[in-house]
């Protein structure tokens, strides 16, 4: 036990003396969460639109006022003819044009029917989609107000209700994803690098020619990173609660335990990587390419798994991050308990046991 503590003490010296890595270790989660939270967002605010009003009557004015007074849009300019539409889009500032047909008000009253064309700049498809949805919502809203006063028959109004993230805040989606990426990166990459560094510097030779058991070396290597990863997880959760007002509906304790389980899985992967790579460079490349990309692309963090082609859907099952994201989304957003995520937890546990077993078995007691 004394040997083990001595080993861990040495590991902490390494970590705390390497200022740059330490900075990355703790700077990265904060930077990432802030970036994802503030900069990368699906919400729209103050989008510039242009108006082409062929009728210029009371109704269109009212609708335009509604648009302008919402915080989502600001009227950038009024244009006079169809041919100007192309021109304003080309300038790039205007993202949408509302085109009211001639005699808008008249048509609405006489025929109960009027046309408005919504043209959006779909160079960014997500934004275009969101804009058209928002415009629709504002129009529906206006109609509803109008219909209160008049007699209206037969109208189907769908009442869409978004649960768990009613305001569709993108940060709610990013926090679990970023947390997964960071825990994966810190745990797997840092451990694999710290083990291969010993190989590269030749100190592994001395460690092997000592009474230290393989399991002591492995556990001694991962222990400090379990500790650091837990701190990272706490930092991320605290940031998302206090800066982005992200709710944690479920039990914090369960969230913590699941995180530890995921950290251990990632660490085992890191050890496995270190057994197959001879240099720190290789270890880093394998960690980045072999772990980061699948975590970002196939875990359902950014791209929904259900819309992937079938082979990719099947592959996504072997990615631990997928299961962890399901679990923490459940706990944080839906407030579910273990009875709802036990299956995912069990899969993660199985993966952890498998990888630890494999890496202990693959750990070399000699040089070749």
């Amino acid at each position: 036990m004394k040997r083990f503590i001595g080993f861990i003490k040495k590991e902490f010296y390494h970590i705390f003396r390497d200022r740059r890595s330490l900075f990355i270790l703790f700077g990265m989660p904060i930077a990432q969460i802030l970036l994802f939270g503030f900069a990368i967002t699906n919400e729209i605010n103050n989008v510039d639109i242009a108006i082409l009003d062929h009728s210029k009557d009371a109704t269109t004015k009212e609708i335009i006022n509604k648009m302008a007074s919402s915080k989502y849009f600001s009227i950038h300019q009024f244009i006079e003819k169809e041919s100007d539409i192309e021109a304003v889009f080309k300038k790039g500032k205007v993202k949408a044009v509302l085109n009211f047909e001639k005699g808008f008000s008249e048509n609405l009253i006489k025929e109960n029917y009027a046309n408005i064309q919504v043209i959006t700049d779909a160079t960014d498809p997500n934004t275009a989609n969101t804009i058209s949805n928002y415009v629709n919502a504002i129009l529906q809203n206006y109609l509803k107000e109008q219909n209160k006063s008049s007699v209206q028959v037969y109208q189907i109004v769908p009442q869409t209700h978004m649960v768990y993230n009613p305001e569709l805040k993108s940060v709610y989606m990013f926090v679990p994803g970023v947390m997964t990426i960071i825990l994966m990166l810190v745990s797997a990459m840092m451990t694999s690098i710290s083990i291969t560094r010993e190989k590269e510097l030749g100190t592994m030779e001395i460690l092997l020619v000592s009474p230290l058991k393989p399991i002591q070396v492995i556990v001694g290597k991962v222990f400090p990173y379990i500790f650091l990863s837990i701190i990272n997880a706490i930092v991320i959760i605290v940031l998302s609660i206090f800066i982005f007002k992200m709710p944690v509906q479920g039990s914090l304790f369960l969230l913590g335990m699941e995180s530890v389980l995921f950290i251990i899985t990632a660490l085992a992967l890191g050890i496995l990587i270190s057994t197959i790579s001879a240099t720190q460079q290789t270890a880093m490349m394998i960690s980045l390419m072999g772990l980061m990309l699948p975590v970002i692309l196939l875990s359902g963090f950014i791209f929904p798994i259900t819309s992937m082609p079938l082979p990719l859907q099947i592959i996504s099952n072997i990615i631990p991050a997928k299961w962890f994201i399901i679990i923490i989304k459940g706990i944080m957003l839906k407030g579910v308990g273990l009875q709802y995520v036990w299956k995912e937890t069990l899969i993660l546990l199985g993966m952890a046991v498998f990888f630890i077993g494999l890496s202990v078995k693959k750990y070399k007691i000699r040089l070749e």
Partner: protein
Amino acid sequence: MSIKIANISKSYKKVNALKNISFEVKSGELFGLIGPDGAGKTTLFRILTTLLIANEGVASVAGFDVITDYKSIRKNVGYMPGKFSLYQDLTVEENLDFFATIFGTTIEENYDLIKDIYIQIEPFKNRRAGKLSGGMKQKLALCCALIHKPKVLFLDEPTTGVDPVSRKEFWEMLKRLQQKGITILVSTPYMDEAALCDRIALIQGGKILEIDTPAAIVKHYLKPIYNVSANNMYQLVNSLKAYEYNHSVYPFGEFVHYTDRRSDFNPAELKVYLESKKLSNITIEKTVATIEDTFMELAK
């Protein structure tokens, strides 16, 4: 016997690093493995320290088999690899403390063993190991290899890249450690260090050329050997190599070591030949063979 090596062979993918090597090292002996780079010294060290498995043959260290009893060997030997293998970002004291801890001991417990050496690096004990000079690094590495009081000490080229003064000090330390009953197997490419060992094995190309005491090995060199010098070293070597009766010609410091094929060699005759090659200030004197001469002869 402290180390027994019998018919050890080891080959990597393409290279035969060791070819059927056998020798023994007595308890308490200071045994030198002398040979150039690539001779197979490091491979042999790694087999003995249980880091590699030989393709053929058996070996034991301190009575333990290197394969079946590798765990016992790892408790009882000290190993200093050729490359500086301590933690550069840890201080002198932290390194020493770490190695003491993983071997289940403390600095205080075995302080008397390392005292002579440690006292020299103690003024720098709070300096990071990476910032030490070459000689200091070697002393620290030796302390770390000694801290658990090993029965057998393996030193792989401990003085390579170390200045002459530190090298001399280092060998004095080895002598003192030997007196404390530690068996030492040391490798070096420097022939002058060979003379300081009890016995040496000359190794080249994975084969042992000769094993004996340094004095006996020199005696094996039967041909009379001459120190030849002249005003132009480069031309002297070329002229001697062109001389029809030459047996061996090796530059050796300010002299050239020369041996002749004839048993009735007359130095005056050689002098005449060299003068004909427009060399002046020629001296030819009989000298005693060194280990290097023996090595060169055996390696021919």
